[in-house]
Protein backbone atom coordinates (compact mmCIF):
# COMPACT_ATOMS: atom_id res chain seq x y z
CA UNK A 1 0.00 0.00 0.00
CA UNK A 2 1.37 3.44 -0.89
CA UNK A 3 2.39 6.03 1.65
CA UNK A 4 -0.52 8.37 0.94
CA UNK A 5 -3.16 5.68 1.65
CA UNK A 6 -1.37 4.70 4.87
CA UNK A 7 -1.30 8.33 5.97
CA UNK A 8 -5.02 8.71 5.16
CA UNK A 9 -5.88 5.61 7.16
CA UNK A 10 -3.75 6.77 10.09
CA UNK A 11 -5.30 10.23 10.26
CA UNK A 12 -8.83 8.84 10.05
CA UNK A 13 -8.02 6.29 12.77
CA UNK A 14 -6.77 9.11 15.01
CA UNK A 15 -10.09 10.92 14.66
CA UNK A 16 -12.09 7.76 15.31
CA UNK A 17 -9.92 7.07 18.37
CA UNK A 18 -10.55 10.58 19.73
CA UNK A 19 -14.24 10.40 18.97
CA UNK A 20 -15.11 7.02 20.50
CA UNK A 21 -13.91 7.90 23.99
CA UNK A 22 -14.68 11.60 24.17
CA UNK A 23 -17.71 11.39 26.48
CA UNK A 24 -16.99 8.48 28.82
CA UNK A 25 -17.79 8.83 32.54
CA UNK A 26 -15.01 8.47 35.09
CA UNK A 27 -16.64 5.27 36.37
CA UNK A 28 -15.64 3.50 33.17
CA UNK A 29 -12.12 4.92 32.84
CA UNK A 30 -10.46 1.81 34.22
CA UNK A 31 -12.31 -0.76 32.06
CA UNK A 32 -11.86 1.43 29.00
CA UNK A 33 -8.12 1.70 29.60
CA UNK A 34 -7.97 -2.04 30.14
CA UNK A 35 -9.98 -2.74 26.95
CA UNK A 36 -7.75 -0.45 24.87
CA UNK A 37 -4.78 -2.20 26.48
CA UNK A 38 -6.10 -5.55 25.25
CA UNK A 39 -6.57 -4.21 21.72
CA UNK A 40 -2.93 -3.30 21.27
CA UNK A 41 -2.14 -6.92 22.09
CA UNK A 42 -2.97 -7.41 18.40
CA UNK A 43 0.77 -6.92 17.93
CA UNK A 44 0.48 -10.72 18.22
CA UNK A 45 -0.29 -10.71 14.47
CA UNK A 46 3.07 -9.01 13.82
CA UNK A 47 4.89 -11.38 16.17
CA UNK A 48 3.37 -14.41 14.39
CA UNK A 49 4.46 -13.07 10.97
CA UNK A 50 8.01 -12.49 12.19
CA UNK A 51 8.20 -15.88 13.90
CA UNK A 52 6.80 -17.61 10.80
CA UNK A 53 9.53 -16.14 8.62
CA UNK A 54 12.41 -16.78 11.03
CA UNK A 55 15.14 -19.03 9.62
CA UNK A 56 17.84 -18.49 12.25
CA UNK A 57 17.25 -20.19 15.66
CA UNK A 58 18.12 -17.01 17.54
CA UNK A 59 15.67 -14.96 15.49
CA UNK A 60 13.03 -17.62 16.08
CA UNK A 61 13.72 -17.58 19.83
CA UNK A 62 13.31 -13.81 20.06
CA UNK A 63 10.22 -13.91 17.83
CA UNK A 64 8.65 -16.64 19.97
CA UNK A 65 9.32 -14.53 23.06
CA UNK A 66 7.45 -11.72 21.29
CA UNK A 67 4.58 -14.14 20.56
CA UNK A 68 4.38 -15.15 24.24
CA UNK A 69 4.43 -11.52 25.42
CA UNK A 70 1.87 -10.39 22.82
CA UNK A 71 -0.46 -13.30 23.64
CA UNK A 72 -0.25 -12.43 27.33
CA UNK A 73 -1.21 -8.82 26.49
CA UNK A 74 -4.07 -9.85 24.19
CA UNK A 75 -5.63 -12.74 26.14
CA UNK A 76 -4.91 -11.38 29.61
CA UNK A 77 -6.17 -7.94 28.60
CA UNK A 78 -9.55 -9.13 27.38
CA UNK A 79 -10.02 -11.53 30.30
CA UNK A 80 -9.19 -8.93 32.95
CA UNK A 81 -11.48 -6.37 31.29
CA UNK A 82 -14.30 -8.92 31.22
CA UNK A 83 -13.80 -9.56 34.92
CA UNK A 84 -14.03 -5.86 35.72
CA UNK A 85 -17.20 -5.53 33.68
CA UNK A 86 -18.76 -8.60 35.27
CA UNK A 87 -18.88 -6.50 38.44
CA UNK A 88 -20.52 -3.60 36.66
CA UNK A 89 -23.34 -5.70 35.31
CA UNK A 90 -24.31 -6.65 38.83
CA UNK A 91 -24.94 -3.04 39.73
CA UNK A 92 -26.84 -2.11 36.59
CA UNK A 93 -30.21 -2.84 38.16
CA UNK A 94 -33.07 -0.56 37.27
CA UNK A 95 -34.30 1.17 40.47
CA UNK A 96 -37.73 -0.51 40.17
CA UNK A 97 -36.05 -3.87 40.78
CA UNK A 98 -34.65 -2.97 44.20
CA UNK A 99 -36.56 -5.85 45.79
CA UNK A 100 -35.03 -8.32 43.39
CA UNK A 101 -31.64 -7.09 44.52
CA UNK A 102 -31.98 -8.47 48.05
CA UNK A 103 -31.05 -12.08 47.18
CA UNK A 104 -27.87 -10.60 45.77
CA UNK A 105 -26.99 -8.82 49.00
CA UNK A 106 -27.61 -11.88 51.17
CA UNK A 107 -25.28 -13.73 48.83
CA UNK A 108 -22.49 -11.26 49.41
CA UNK A 109 -20.70 -13.03 52.29
CA UNK A 110 -20.57 -16.19 50.19
CA UNK A 111 -19.00 -14.50 47.21
CA UNK A 112 -16.62 -12.77 49.60
CA UNK A 113 -15.25 -16.14 50.61
CA UNK A 114 -14.35 -17.00 47.03
CA UNK A 115 -13.75 -13.94 44.90
CA UNK A 116 -12.39 -16.21 42.14
CA UNK A 117 -13.98 -17.37 38.92
CA UNK A 118 -16.66 -19.48 40.62
CA UNK A 119 -18.25 -16.39 42.17
CA UNK A 120 -18.28 -14.80 38.73
CA UNK A 121 -20.47 -17.42 37.15
CA UNK A 122 -23.11 -17.34 39.86
CA UNK A 123 -23.24 -13.57 39.71
CA UNK A 124 -23.46 -13.80 35.96
CA UNK A 125 -26.42 -16.13 36.20
CA UNK A 126 -28.06 -13.89 38.79
CA UNK A 127 -27.59 -10.88 36.54
CA UNK A 128 -29.21 -12.71 33.65
CA UNK A 129 -32.25 -13.61 35.77
CA UNK A 130 -32.64 -10.01 36.80
CA UNK A 131 -32.90 -8.74 33.27
CA UNK A 132 -36.44 -7.97 32.18
Amino acid at each position, binding site marked *: *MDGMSLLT*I*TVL*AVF*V*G*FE*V*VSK*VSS*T*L*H*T*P*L*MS*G*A*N*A*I*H*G*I*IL*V*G*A*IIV*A*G*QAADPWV*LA*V*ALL*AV*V*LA*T*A*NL*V*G*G*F*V*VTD*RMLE*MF*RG*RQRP*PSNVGAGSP*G*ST*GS*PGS*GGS*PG*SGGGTTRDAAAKERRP
Partner: protein
Amino acid sequence: MTLLNPTWTALLYLAAAACFILALKGLNSPRTARRGNLIGALGALVAVVTVFLSVKLDNIPWILGAIAVGSGVAAPVARRVQMTQMPQLVALFNGVGGGAAALVALLELSHTDEPWVRLAIVFTLLVGAVSFAGSGVTFAKLQGLMTTRPVTFPGLPVLMAVVLLAAVGAGVVVILNGSLVLALVLLVLGLVAGILLVLPVGGADVPIVISLLNAFTGLAVAASGLVLGNVLLLVAGTLVGASGTILTRAMAAAMGRSVAGIMFGAFKGGSTAGSTAVSERPVRSSSAEDVAVLLGYAQRVIIVPGYGLAVAQGQHTAAELASALKARGIEVDFAIHPVAGRMPGHMNVLLAEANVPYESLKEMGEINSEFKTADVALVVGANDVVNPAAKTTSGSPIYGMPILEVADARQVVFLKRSMRPGFAGIENELLYEPQTTLLFGDAKDSLTKVLGAVKGL
Protein backbone atom coordinates in the same frame (compact mmCIF):
# COMPACT_ATOMS: atom_id res chain seq x y z
CA MET B 1 0.65 -22.26 0.31
CA THR B 2 -1.94 -19.89 1.67
CA LEU B 3 -5.69 -20.30 1.78
CA LEU B 4 -6.73 -16.66 1.57
CA ASN B 5 -6.01 -14.29 -1.27
CA PRO B 6 -5.03 -10.66 -0.48
CA THR B 7 -8.58 -9.37 -0.96
CA TRP B 8 -10.07 -11.74 1.59
CA THR B 9 -7.20 -11.02 3.93
CA ALA B 10 -7.81 -7.29 3.67
CA LEU B 11 -11.56 -7.76 4.21
CA LEU B 12 -11.04 -9.88 7.33
CA TYR B 13 -8.54 -7.37 8.73
CA LEU B 14 -11.08 -4.63 8.03
CA ALA B 15 -13.70 -6.63 9.95
CA ALA B 16 -11.29 -6.99 12.87
CA ALA B 17 -10.57 -3.24 12.85
CA ALA B 18 -14.32 -2.52 12.84
CA CYS B 19 -14.68 -4.86 15.84
CA PHE B 20 -12.04 -2.86 17.71
CA ILE B 21 -13.87 0.42 17.04
CA LEU B 22 -17.15 -1.13 18.21
CA ALA B 23 -15.35 -2.46 21.29
CA LEU B 24 -14.10 0.99 22.31
CA LYS B 25 -17.51 2.47 21.54
CA GLY B 26 -19.22 -0.20 23.66
CA LEU B 27 -16.90 0.47 26.58
CA ASN B 28 -18.35 3.99 26.81
CA SER B 29 -21.51 2.86 28.56
CA PRO B 30 -21.99 0.40 31.44
CA ARG B 31 -24.87 -1.21 29.57
CA THR B 32 -22.85 -2.16 26.48
CA ALA B 33 -19.37 -2.40 27.99
CA ARG B 34 -19.18 -6.14 28.45
CA ARG B 35 -20.53 -6.88 24.99
CA GLY B 36 -18.07 -4.33 23.59
CA ASN B 37 -15.17 -6.13 25.20
CA LEU B 38 -16.35 -9.46 23.77
CA ILE B 39 -16.62 -7.90 20.29
CA GLY B 40 -13.02 -6.72 20.68
CA ALA B 41 -11.91 -10.25 21.61
CA LEU B 42 -13.80 -11.59 18.60
CA GLY B 43 -11.99 -9.11 16.35
CA ALA B 44 -8.66 -10.24 17.77
CA LEU B 45 -9.57 -13.89 17.13
CA VAL B 46 -10.55 -13.13 13.52
CA ALA B 47 -7.25 -11.30 13.00
CA VAL B 48 -5.11 -14.10 14.44
CA VAL B 49 -6.89 -16.80 12.41
CA THR B 50 -6.52 -14.62 9.30
CA VAL B 51 -2.76 -14.28 9.71
CA PHE B 52 -2.37 -18.06 9.89
CA LEU B 53 -4.42 -18.50 6.70
CA SER B 54 -2.98 -15.63 4.67
CA VAL B 55 0.79 -15.61 5.23
CA LYS B 56 3.16 -18.44 4.40
CA LEU B 57 4.47 -19.35 7.85
CA ASP B 58 7.17 -21.75 8.99
CA ASN B 59 7.60 -22.91 12.59
CA ILE B 60 3.82 -23.19 13.09
CA PRO B 61 4.07 -25.77 15.93
CA TRP B 62 6.48 -23.48 17.75
CA ILE B 63 4.19 -20.48 17.25
CA LEU B 64 1.15 -22.38 18.50
CA GLY B 65 3.20 -23.54 21.49
CA ALA B 66 4.20 -19.95 22.28
CA ILE B 67 0.56 -18.82 22.03
CA ALA B 68 -0.43 -21.66 24.37
CA VAL B 69 2.24 -20.58 26.87
CA GLY B 70 1.20 -16.92 26.70
CA SER B 71 -2.51 -17.63 27.18
CA GLY B 72 -1.80 -20.39 29.68
CA VAL B 73 0.00 -17.92 31.92
CA ALA B 74 -2.08 -14.78 31.34
CA ALA B 75 -5.65 -16.11 31.38
CA PRO B 76 -5.53 -17.80 34.82
CA VAL B 77 -3.69 -14.82 36.32
CA ALA B 78 -6.30 -12.45 34.88
CA ARG B 79 -9.11 -14.73 36.13
CA ARG B 80 -7.80 -15.12 39.66
CA VAL B 81 -6.23 -11.75 40.39
CA GLN B 82 -7.72 -9.93 43.35
CA MET B 83 -9.82 -6.97 42.28
CA THR B 84 -7.48 -4.76 44.27
CA GLN B 85 -4.47 -5.86 42.24
CA MET B 86 -6.09 -5.18 38.89
CA PRO B 87 -4.32 -1.86 38.22
CA GLN B 88 -0.86 -3.37 38.35
CA LEU B 89 -1.97 -6.30 36.20
CA VAL B 90 -3.16 -3.89 33.51
CA ALA B 91 0.24 -2.18 33.75
CA LEU B 92 1.98 -5.52 33.36
CA PHE B 93 -0.04 -6.55 30.30
CA ASN B 94 0.56 -3.14 28.76
CA GLY B 95 4.30 -3.47 29.33
CA VAL B 96 4.63 -6.89 27.72
CA GLY B 97 2.69 -5.62 24.69
CA GLY B 98 5.19 -2.79 24.31
CA GLY B 99 8.03 -5.26 24.71
CA ALA B 100 6.56 -7.50 22.01
CA ALA B 101 6.30 -4.53 19.61
CA ALA B 102 9.94 -3.60 20.25
CA LEU B 103 11.11 -7.18 19.60
CA VAL B 104 9.11 -7.38 16.35
CA ALA B 105 10.69 -4.13 15.17
CA LEU B 106 14.18 -5.34 16.12
CA LEU B 107 13.80 -8.53 14.07
CA GLU B 108 12.47 -6.66 11.04
CA LEU B 109 15.56 -4.46 10.82
CA SER B 110 17.50 -6.94 8.66
CA HIS B 111 14.56 -7.24 6.22
CA THR B 112 14.58 -3.68 4.96
CA ASP B 113 16.91 -1.03 3.62
CA GLU B 114 14.32 1.70 3.13
CA PRO B 115 15.01 4.68 5.40
CA TRP B 116 11.36 5.42 6.21
CA VAL B 117 10.74 1.81 7.27
CA ARG B 118 13.84 2.05 9.44
CA LEU B 119 12.42 5.25 10.92
CA ALA B 120 9.28 3.34 11.90
CA ILE B 121 11.49 0.59 13.36
CA VAL B 122 13.46 3.11 15.42
CA PHE B 123 10.22 4.64 16.72
CA THR B 124 8.74 1.25 17.63
CA LEU B 125 11.95 0.13 19.36
CA LEU B 126 12.24 3.26 21.44
CA VAL B 127 8.58 3.72 22.38
CA GLY B 128 8.03 -0.01 22.94
CA ALA B 129 11.04 -0.16 25.25
CA VAL B 130 9.93 2.96 27.16
CA SER B 131 6.50 1.41 27.62
CA PHE B 132 7.95 -1.94 28.73
CA ALA B 133 10.33 -0.50 31.32
CA GLY B 134 7.95 2.25 32.45
CA SER B 135 5.13 -0.25 32.98
CA GLY B 136 7.54 -2.47 34.88
CA VAL B 137 8.27 0.39 37.30
CA THR B 138 4.56 1.23 37.72
CA PHE B 139 3.92 -2.46 38.40
CA ALA B 140 6.64 -2.49 41.06
CA LYS B 141 5.21 0.69 42.63
CA LEU B 142 1.63 -0.58 42.77
CA GLN B 143 2.62 -4.08 43.86
CA GLY B 144 4.58 -2.58 46.75
CA LEU B 145 7.91 -3.92 45.47
CA MET B 146 9.31 -0.40 45.74
CA THR B 147 8.28 2.89 47.29
CA THR B 148 5.18 4.54 45.84
CA ARG B 149 6.66 7.96 46.55
CA PRO B 150 8.27 9.94 43.75
CA VAL B 151 11.92 8.96 43.37
CA THR B 152 14.13 11.85 42.31
CA PHE B 153 17.80 12.70 42.42
CA PRO B 154 19.61 15.91 41.51
CA GLY B 155 21.02 14.78 38.15
CA LEU B 156 17.76 13.26 36.90
CA PRO B 157 16.79 15.90 34.31
CA VAL B 158 20.37 15.98 32.96
CA LEU B 159 20.55 12.18 32.78
CA MET B 160 17.18 12.04 31.03
CA ALA B 161 18.34 14.62 28.48
CA VAL B 162 21.58 12.70 27.87
CA VAL B 163 19.70 9.42 27.39
CA LEU B 164 17.24 11.00 24.96
CA LEU B 165 20.01 12.72 22.96
CA ALA B 166 21.94 9.44 22.77
CA ALA B 167 18.74 7.70 21.65
CA VAL B 168 18.20 10.25 18.89
CA GLY B 169 21.84 9.84 17.80
CA ALA B 170 21.64 6.04 17.77
CA GLY B 171 18.30 6.26 15.96
CA VAL B 172 19.74 8.42 13.18
CA VAL B 173 22.62 5.97 12.65
CA VAL B 174 20.19 3.02 12.56
CA ILE B 175 18.10 4.83 9.93
CA LEU B 176 21.22 5.53 7.84
CA ASN B 177 22.95 2.14 7.92
CA GLY B 178 20.62 -0.33 9.66
CA SER B 179 23.18 -1.27 12.33
CA LEU B 180 21.84 -4.06 14.56
CA VAL B 181 24.28 -3.25 17.35
CA LEU B 182 23.06 0.33 17.54
CA ALA B 183 19.47 -0.91 17.42
CA LEU B 184 20.25 -2.94 20.56
CA VAL B 185 21.82 0.16 22.11
CA LEU B 186 18.64 2.03 21.25
CA LEU B 187 16.60 -0.68 22.94
CA VAL B 188 18.65 -0.33 26.14
CA LEU B 189 18.41 3.48 26.01
CA GLY B 190 14.62 3.12 25.64
CA LEU B 191 14.50 0.90 28.73
CA VAL B 192 16.55 3.42 30.75
CA ALA B 193 14.36 6.29 29.51
CA GLY B 194 11.22 4.38 30.54
CA ILE B 195 12.55 3.88 34.06
CA LEU B 196 13.66 7.51 34.37
CA LEU B 197 10.29 8.71 33.07
CA VAL B 198 8.24 6.88 35.70
CA LEU B 199 10.52 6.98 38.77
CA PRO B 200 9.72 10.63 39.64
CA VAL B 201 5.97 10.01 39.36
CA GLY B 202 4.34 9.05 42.60
CA GLY B 203 1.25 9.39 44.63
CA ALA B 204 -2.09 9.06 42.99
CA ASP B 205 -0.57 9.91 39.60
CA VAL B 206 0.59 6.37 38.86
CA PRO B 207 -2.69 5.29 37.14
CA ILE B 208 -2.45 8.26 34.81
CA VAL B 209 1.03 7.13 33.84
CA ILE B 210 -0.30 3.62 33.14
CA SER B 211 -2.86 5.16 30.81
CA LEU B 212 -0.18 7.26 29.12
CA LEU B 213 2.09 4.24 28.62
CA ASN B 214 -0.95 2.40 27.25
CA ALA B 215 -1.24 5.09 24.58
CA PHE B 216 2.53 4.78 23.96
CA THR B 217 2.23 1.04 23.33
CA GLY B 218 -0.62 1.79 20.92
CA LEU B 219 1.65 4.15 18.98
CA ALA B 220 4.45 1.56 18.96
CA VAL B 221 2.02 -1.04 17.56
CA ALA B 222 0.84 1.45 14.92
CA ALA B 223 4.45 2.05 13.85
CA SER B 224 5.08 -1.69 13.71
CA GLY B 225 2.12 -1.85 11.31
CA LEU B 226 4.05 0.50 9.04
CA VAL B 227 7.16 -1.69 9.43
CA LEU B 228 5.32 -4.88 8.46
CA GLY B 229 3.02 -3.20 5.93
CA ASN B 230 0.06 -4.47 8.00
CA VAL B 231 -2.94 -2.14 7.95
CA LEU B 232 -4.68 -3.82 10.90
CA LEU B 233 -1.75 -3.17 13.23
CA LEU B 234 -1.63 0.41 11.97
CA VAL B 235 -5.34 1.02 12.58
CA ALA B 236 -5.58 -0.81 15.92
CA GLY B 237 -2.42 0.84 17.26
CA THR B 238 -3.54 4.29 16.14
CA LEU B 239 -6.97 3.79 17.71
CA VAL B 240 -5.41 2.90 21.05
CA GLY B 241 -2.86 5.69 20.79
CA ALA B 242 -5.53 8.29 20.11
CA SER B 243 -8.17 7.05 22.55
CA GLY B 244 -5.47 6.45 25.18
CA THR B 245 -4.33 10.05 24.89
CA ILE B 246 -7.86 11.37 25.38
CA LEU B 247 -8.43 8.98 28.27
CA THR B 248 -5.19 10.04 29.94
CA ARG B 249 -6.25 13.67 29.74
CA ALA B 250 -9.72 12.85 31.10
CA MET B 251 -8.22 10.93 34.02
CA ALA B 252 -5.84 13.77 34.81
CA ALA B 253 -8.73 16.25 34.62
CA ALA B 254 -10.75 14.15 37.11
CA MET B 255 -7.93 14.75 39.58
CA GLY B 256 -7.46 18.41 38.72
CA ARG B 257 -4.03 17.78 37.21
CA SER B 258 -2.45 18.22 33.81
CA VAL B 259 -0.59 15.39 32.10
CA ALA B 260 2.44 17.60 31.48
CA GLY B 261 2.44 18.66 35.13
CA ILE B 262 2.45 15.03 36.24
CA MET B 263 5.19 13.92 33.89
CA PHE B 264 7.49 16.90 34.27
CA GLY B 265 6.52 18.31 37.67
CA ALA B 266 9.16 16.25 39.43
CA PHE B 267 11.81 17.29 36.92
CA LYS B 268 11.22 20.90 37.81
CA GLY B 269 11.89 20.06 41.42
CA GLY B 270 8.42 21.23 42.44
CA SER B 271 7.40 18.01 44.10
CA THR B 272 7.09 18.23 47.82
CA ALA B 273 5.61 14.77 48.27
CA GLY B 274 7.27 12.62 50.87
CA SER B 275 9.05 15.50 52.51
CA THR B 276 6.60 16.01 55.35
CA ALA B 277 7.41 14.28 58.59
CA VAL B 278 4.63 12.81 60.70
CA SER B 279 4.01 15.31 63.45
CA GLU B 280 3.53 14.48 67.12
CA ARG B 281 0.32 16.42 67.62
CA PRO B 282 -2.40 14.71 69.64
CA VAL B 283 -5.34 13.04 67.90
CA ARG B 284 -8.52 11.57 69.33
CA SER B 285 -8.43 7.83 68.94
CA SER B 286 -11.32 5.72 69.98
CA SER B 287 -12.66 2.16 70.29
CA ALA B 288 -14.85 0.21 67.90
CA GLU B 289 -17.71 0.37 70.43
CA ASP B 290 -17.59 4.17 70.52
CA VAL B 291 -17.61 4.31 66.74
CA ALA B 292 -20.57 1.90 66.69
CA VAL B 293 -22.50 4.21 69.04
CA LEU B 294 -21.73 7.23 66.84
CA LEU B 295 -22.95 5.36 63.77
CA GLY B 296 -25.86 3.50 65.35
CA TYR B 297 -27.55 6.63 66.71
CA ALA B 298 -26.99 8.79 63.65
CA GLN B 299 -29.72 9.66 61.15
CA ARG B 300 -27.50 9.90 58.12
CA VAL B 301 -24.13 8.24 57.55
CA ILE B 302 -21.92 8.70 54.51
CA ILE B 303 -19.22 6.10 54.02
CA VAL B 304 -16.12 7.25 52.15
CA PRO B 305 -14.20 4.20 50.93
CA GLY B 306 -10.57 4.52 49.87
CA TYR B 307 -7.60 2.46 48.90
CA GLY B 308 -7.11 1.07 52.42
CA LEU B 309 -10.52 -0.59 52.18
CA ALA B 310 -9.54 -2.17 48.89
CA VAL B 311 -6.19 -3.41 50.17
CA ALA B 312 -7.79 -4.96 53.25
CA GLN B 313 -10.45 -6.65 51.06
CA GLY B 314 -12.99 -4.96 53.32
CA GLN B 315 -15.60 -4.12 50.67
CA HIS B 316 -17.89 -6.99 51.72
CA THR B 317 -17.70 -6.01 55.39
CA ALA B 318 -18.38 -2.38 54.47
CA ALA B 319 -21.45 -3.51 52.52
CA GLU B 320 -22.63 -5.54 55.54
CA LEU B 321 -22.12 -2.59 57.87
CA ALA B 322 -24.17 -0.43 55.51
CA SER B 323 -26.99 -3.00 55.52
CA ALA B 324 -26.87 -3.29 59.32
CA LEU B 325 -27.14 0.50 59.67
CA LYS B 326 -29.96 0.65 57.12
CA ALA B 327 -31.77 -2.02 59.12
CA ARG B 328 -31.71 0.46 62.04
CA GLY B 329 -33.44 3.02 59.82
CA ILE B 330 -30.32 5.05 59.14
CA GLU B 331 -29.79 6.61 55.74
CA VAL B 332 -26.48 5.29 54.40
CA ASP B 333 -24.66 6.27 51.21
CA PHE B 334 -21.25 5.58 49.77
CA ALA B 335 -19.40 8.65 48.48
CA ILE B 336 -17.17 7.61 45.60
CA HIS B 337 -14.28 9.87 44.68
CA PRO B 338 -13.42 9.51 40.97
CA VAL B 339 -9.95 8.24 41.83
CA ALA B 340 -10.76 6.35 45.03
CA GLY B 341 -9.01 3.03 45.09
CA ARG B 342 -6.02 3.35 42.93
CA MET B 343 -7.54 3.82 39.51
CA PRO B 344 -10.44 5.91 38.31
CA GLY B 345 -13.62 3.89 38.73
CA HIS B 346 -11.83 1.20 40.76
CA MET B 347 -13.98 1.68 43.87
CA ASN B 348 -17.21 1.28 41.90
CA VAL B 349 -15.92 -2.08 40.69
CA LEU B 350 -15.03 -3.22 44.22
CA LEU B 351 -18.32 -2.17 45.82
CA ALA B 352 -20.35 -3.58 42.96
CA GLU B 353 -18.50 -6.84 43.60
CA ALA B 354 -19.75 -6.66 47.20
CA ASN B 355 -23.32 -6.17 45.93
CA VAL B 356 -23.72 -2.65 47.27
CA PRO B 357 -26.90 -1.38 45.57
CA TYR B 358 -26.34 0.95 42.65
CA GLU B 359 -28.48 3.68 44.25
CA SER B 360 -26.19 3.85 47.29
CA LEU B 361 -23.10 4.64 45.24
CA LYS B 362 -22.96 8.42 44.89
CA GLU B 363 -20.47 10.23 42.70
CA MET B 364 -18.56 13.16 44.12
CA GLY B 365 -20.54 15.94 42.45
CA GLU B 366 -23.79 14.43 43.65
CA ILE B 367 -22.84 13.85 47.29
CA ASN B 368 -20.56 16.76 48.15
CA SER B 369 -23.40 19.12 49.06
CA GLU B 370 -24.96 16.41 51.27
CA PHE B 371 -22.10 16.10 53.76
CA LYS B 372 -23.60 19.14 55.55
CA THR B 373 -26.66 17.05 56.39
CA ALA B 374 -24.68 13.98 57.48
CA ASP B 375 -24.21 13.14 61.15
CA VAL B 376 -21.20 10.95 60.53
CA ALA B 377 -18.77 10.70 57.64
CA LEU B 378 -17.05 7.32 57.97
CA VAL B 379 -13.76 7.45 56.08
CA VAL B 380 -12.47 3.93 55.53
CA GLY B 381 -8.88 3.75 54.39
CA ALA B 382 -9.01 6.98 52.42
CA ASN B 383 -6.81 9.98 53.03
CA ASP B 384 -5.73 12.06 50.05
CA VAL B 385 -9.22 12.22 48.52
CA VAL B 386 -10.59 13.92 51.67
CA ASN B 387 -7.52 16.04 52.46
CA PRO B 388 -8.46 19.74 52.71
CA ALA B 389 -4.85 20.57 51.73
CA ALA B 390 -6.06 20.06 48.15
CA LYS B 391 -8.07 23.26 48.59
CA THR B 392 -5.96 25.26 51.01
CA THR B 393 -2.25 24.51 50.56
CA SER B 394 -1.04 25.73 47.19
CA GLY B 395 2.37 24.04 47.49
CA SER B 396 0.86 20.61 48.16
CA PRO B 397 1.26 17.89 45.53
CA ILE B 398 -2.50 17.33 45.55
CA TYR B 399 -3.37 21.02 45.36
CA GLY B 400 -6.25 21.55 42.96
CA MET B 401 -7.53 17.98 43.14
CA PRO B 402 -11.27 17.95 43.84
CA ILE B 403 -11.99 16.34 47.23
CA LEU B 404 -14.94 14.93 49.12
CA GLU B 405 -16.06 17.58 51.62
CA VAL B 406 -16.15 15.28 54.65
CA ALA B 407 -15.18 18.17 56.92
CA ASP B 408 -18.76 19.46 56.52
CA ALA B 409 -20.18 16.45 58.36
CA ARG B 410 -20.97 16.82 62.07
CA GLN B 411 -18.59 14.02 63.01
CA VAL B 412 -15.78 12.49 60.98
CA VAL B 413 -14.55 8.99 61.77
CA PHE B 414 -11.35 7.76 60.16
CA LEU B 415 -10.56 4.05 60.07
CA LYS B 416 -6.81 4.07 59.46
CA ARG B 417 -3.94 1.67 59.84
CA SER B 418 -1.65 4.31 61.34
CA MET B 419 -0.90 8.01 61.28
CA ARG B 420 1.19 7.44 58.18
CA PRO B 421 0.27 9.90 55.42
CA GLY B 422 -1.56 8.62 52.35
CA PHE B 423 -0.39 7.75 48.88
CA ALA B 424 0.59 11.31 48.01
CA GLY B 425 2.74 11.45 51.13
CA ILE B 426 1.22 14.50 52.79
CA GLU B 427 -0.36 15.01 56.15
CA ASN B 428 -4.07 15.47 56.56
CA GLU B 429 -4.98 18.39 58.83
CA LEU B 430 -8.47 16.96 59.19
CA LEU B 431 -7.10 14.21 61.44
CA TYR B 432 -6.35 16.84 64.12
CA GLU B 433 -9.71 18.62 63.97
CA PRO B 434 -11.95 18.44 67.06
CA GLN B 435 -14.84 16.73 65.20
CA THR B 436 -12.56 13.89 64.09
CA THR B 437 -12.34 10.48 65.73
CA LEU B 438 -9.80 7.84 64.72
CA LEU B 439 -9.99 4.08 64.95
CA PHE B 440 -6.62 2.52 64.21
CA GLY B 441 -6.25 -0.86 62.58
CA ASP B 442 -6.64 -2.79 59.36
CA ALA B 443 -9.77 -1.55 57.56
CA LYS B 444 -11.43 -4.95 57.44
CA ASP B 445 -10.67 -5.81 61.08
CA SER B 446 -11.95 -2.42 62.24
CA LEU B 447 -15.09 -2.73 60.13
CA THR B 448 -15.72 -6.23 61.46
CA LYS B 449 -15.40 -4.97 65.06
CA VAL B 450 -17.63 -1.97 64.39
CA LEU B 451 -20.17 -4.20 62.63
CA GLY B 452 -20.23 -6.56 65.62
CA ALA B 453 -20.69 -3.65 68.00
CA VAL B 454 -23.46 -2.11 65.89
CA LYS B 455 -25.33 -5.42 65.89
CA GLY B 456 -24.99 -5.53 69.68
CA LEU B 457 -26.48 -2.06 70.23
